[in-house]
């Protein structure tokens, strides 16, 4: 209860209003308005190509042609002061293949400004978090796809960021590892008070999130808790709820056309 109260008082970690992104003349995100409460694990779900990655790039400030309001941790997205407070994992692992996992983390830790004394400890903790200590000194290029994804995730955990933006971090991982990672995400939110925005195109991961943003073709279909979503659409699974909302949106489009 206390946590809920704190959540209600503290300002949202992400606040978007009329957010629009144009890429190559095409409107990829069209007037999104939503908030992500601080300290939660929020899922960003939708089919491939619906704009999930673009939204995440806008949040971390690497996307150009962003209009509307997009505030992250109380500052406009991409502000210099946010760069050490937001952890970001791109869809494909952005690590150096010709360095070991530990060397990768060590470099990124230095870039984040973690001082030399704390660096080794932070690197070790991040490696432990993603269960990679046994492969820490293997060349990243020799790791499997799933292991590489976890190195990339470990980089985002360095420096205990207040917001973690994770683009499909569990894709291609086995069920045990996926469960472990989701447990880790919740632990990070609960213990460190961080906010996590996790994207996925696999709907069965939705129930692991406290809140969901459903995105389709650049439009927000829903912004709710998984339970509410199922209740409102009178469906049993999030996948059905999503399909229900898609059909409803289509019918509306057709009746307008």
């Amino acid at each position, binding site marked *: 209860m206390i946590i809920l109260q704190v959540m209600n008082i503290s300002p949202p970690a992400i606040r978007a209003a009329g957010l629009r992104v144009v890429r190559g003349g095409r409107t990829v995100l069209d007037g999104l308005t939503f908030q992500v409460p601080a300290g939660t694990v929020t899922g960003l779900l939708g089919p491939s190509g619906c704009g999930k990655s673009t939204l995440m790039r806008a949040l971390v400030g690497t996307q150009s042609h962003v209009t509307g309001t997009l505030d992250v941790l109380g500052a406009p997205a991409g502000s*210099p002061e946010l760069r050490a407070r937001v952890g*970001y994992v791109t869809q494909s692992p952005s690590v150096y293949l010709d*360095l070991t996992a530990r060397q990768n983390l060590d470099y*990124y830790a230095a870039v984040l400004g973690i001082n030399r004394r704390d660096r080794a400890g932070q690197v070790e903790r991040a490696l432990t978090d993603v269960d990679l200590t046994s492969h820490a000194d293997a060349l990243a290029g020799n790791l499997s796809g799933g292991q590489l994804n976890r190195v990339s995730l470990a980089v985002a955990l360095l420096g205990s960021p207040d917001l973690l933006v994770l683009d499909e971090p569990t894709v291609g991982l086995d069920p045990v590892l996926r469960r472990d990672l989701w447990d880790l995400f919740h632990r990070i939110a609960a213990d460190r008070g961080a906010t996590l925005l996790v994207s996925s195109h696999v709907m069965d991961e939705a129930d692991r999130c406290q809140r969901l943003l459903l995105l389709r073709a650049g439009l927000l279909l829903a912004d709710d808790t998984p339970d509410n979503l199922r209740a409102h659409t009178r469906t049993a699974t999030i996948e059905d709820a999503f399909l229900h909302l898609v059909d409803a949106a289509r019918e509306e489009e057709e009746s307008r056309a």
Partner: protein
Amino acid sequence: MNASRTFATALRVLRQLRHDPRTIALLLLVPVLLLVLLFYVFDADRRAFDGIGASLLGIFPLVTMFLVTSIATLRERTSGTLERLLAMPLGKGDLIAGYALAFGLLAAVQASVATGVAVWLLDLSIAGSPWLLLLVALLDALLGTALGLFVSAFAASEFQVVQFMPAMIFPQILLCGLFAPRDSMQPVLEAVSNVLPMSYAVDGMREVLRHPDATGDFAVDAVVVAGSAVLVLVLGAATLRRRTP
């Protein structure tokens, strides 16, 4: 600019290279082997070897550093690591200075080995100090690093980036005075060669070859090469965008 981030970047680039000993071996040995080759090509004419050998000592570092840097930074751009770094508190200057530092160090080793072999083993007879040769070689390497960084912004793949080598480097080699004195070229070409930095690199090497002391011309050459390198590095920094479409 932040010194610790710059050094961390340089260290990272060197660590990457350390995992690739074959590239290091090629970088260090190929210039030496080419010089030896040239030595025997001019078997009957040692004076010709002196002139061309000294010019090549200025051209090698530029070419190899251009290639290494253009591919390394292209990889950084395409692998997503650049996007990640620029979402972090890393200044563009830190990244560029880090690269320049790491490859500059490598170039120093390369140039020292090549100059040492040329002067002591192949009896390249120069009037001036070998240290001045080394200085020009280093400035050339910096210029190569800067050019490589810059062109990587205009290439989408490794195929494209290696094509920039004949496009940007070969014309400079043809016009730098290696094949024909620059003042004997068609006047338009001579004018073009006057604005290409490699011309000054080769002129600088020639000055060391002929004069026992650092001449005023040598100073001008060195300043032009260094200035071009800094200018291109700044242009290269401008091609690093935090926000991309």
